[in-house]
């Protein structure tokens, strides 16, 4: 119940960060759903996601192509990507609603924004998954600034070490925010790390 859920940051920085997940229900509607999944992928890709990848291939930021992701999709495949523009998300939802493909769709983002977009597209949200924070030995956590980057990879593959290193390189002018953010995003194989948001955060931290 996690994956894209625990992204941290201010409301302002979470604007422009919308994770898209499409998942067949194994044992209910997954059999023979590959063409539907491929169609959803096509719709999503045409809309222009910020980042996209898959468990099977890795992400476009490591050289994987749309065709690679499409070829690996099977009946239990999942589509994961992130958008920075809510208008694009809405265009995808409009299309998906009209084509009635019947595969579950989740958008992760600011609740009020997502609900408003759903209402305007005539959708009736079914279930909400809410984050209730981090507990336990929280003294072991890195600082909040680092967590804002790390939590954009739901599998915890983006290390505190690489975030810190790239933050320093940007501050020292050794690397541009965009280049640093794209490097930082590489370990996130699902492609839900939002490198545009990361570049904005890096610019802000470096005072650029």
């Amino acid at each position, binding site marked *: *119940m*996690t*994956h894209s*859920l*625990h992204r*941290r940051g201010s*409301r302002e920085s*979470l604007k422009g960060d919308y*994770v898209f997940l499409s*998942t067949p*229900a*194994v044992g*209910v*509607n997954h059999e023979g759903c590959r063409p539907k999944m491929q169609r959803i992928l096509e719709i999503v890709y045409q809309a222009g996601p910020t980042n996209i990848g898959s*468990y099977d291939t*890795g992400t476009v930021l*490591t*050289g994987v192509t749309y065709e690679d992701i499409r070829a690996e999709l099977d009946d*239990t495949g*999942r589509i994961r990507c992130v958008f920075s523009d809510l208008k694009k998300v809405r265009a995808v939802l409009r299309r998906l609603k009209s084509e009635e*493909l*019947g595969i*579950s*769709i*989740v*958008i*992760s*983002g600011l*609740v*009020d924004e*997502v609900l408003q977009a*759903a209402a305007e597209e005539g*959708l*009736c*949200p*079914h*279930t*909400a*998954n*809410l*984050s*209730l*924070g*981090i*507990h*336990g*030995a*929280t003294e*072991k*956590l*890195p600082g909040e600034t680092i967590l804002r980057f790390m*939590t954009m990879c739901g*599998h*915890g*593959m983006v*290390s*505190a*070490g*690489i975030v810190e290193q790239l933050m320093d390189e940007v501050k020292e002018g050794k690397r541009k925010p965009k280049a640093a953010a794209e490097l930082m995003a590489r370990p996130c*194989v699902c492609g839900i790390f939002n490198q545009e948001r990361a570049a904005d955060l890096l610019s802000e931290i470096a005072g650029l």
Partner: protein
Amino acid sequence: MHINREACIGCETCLAWCPVQAIHMRGDRADIDRDLCTECGNCAREGVVQCPVDCFSVDKLQWPRTVRRFFSDPMATHEETGIPGRGTEESKTNDVTGRIGRGEVGLALEMGRPHVAARGRDIDIMTRALASRGVRFEQDNPLTYLMVDRKRGALDPQLMDVRVISAIIEFVIPRKRLAEVLRLILQKADEIDTVFSLDLAVRFNEDGCLPRLAQLQEFDLQPYPNAKINLGLGRPLAKE
């Protein structure tokens, strides 16, 4: 994970990339601390670390070390469930599965996340505590398969030292039990040597609003402003 130390040129490129701080310098070359390593595959994955001499590779693992990989490498699929990732479809397909109904809440504790990673013994503390209150763990969650006694929430004793990036304890309870279970979870949080990210899944009301969860206030639990919203586009829709 395996490192070919003879090939390593000591450039230190890899050190910062490890999400669990298992790579360090030993002498003038990098090495992997096998106790800390979670077998996540990051260091050997194409296009990620980009070791100039490709000295990382994936080991052929044996039980119980295989568990590290299944709960750490997002590209690994659990043999038992056939589901990739560390959890289940949970709320992502709830419109079709109806796993979490009205009057219920789904709870999940992602042990070890973020950053800290988790040992089996910490997970075991929490699962035993929850089981003692009659919690039934999600059948299809890969963690449930590692329990030798699901009613007691007891993990296989061989897994106590196993370290994973994260494992998700996942279950559904009646909403009226939420306060009691949250109280227990937050008490046990003081006994473990790791962190966990806590989340709650709930159905929207028929009027399209989220139910009011007054119990959260008792514990100062304020949901983040961002959430995962299942938009109800799956078919066939689960029956009430």
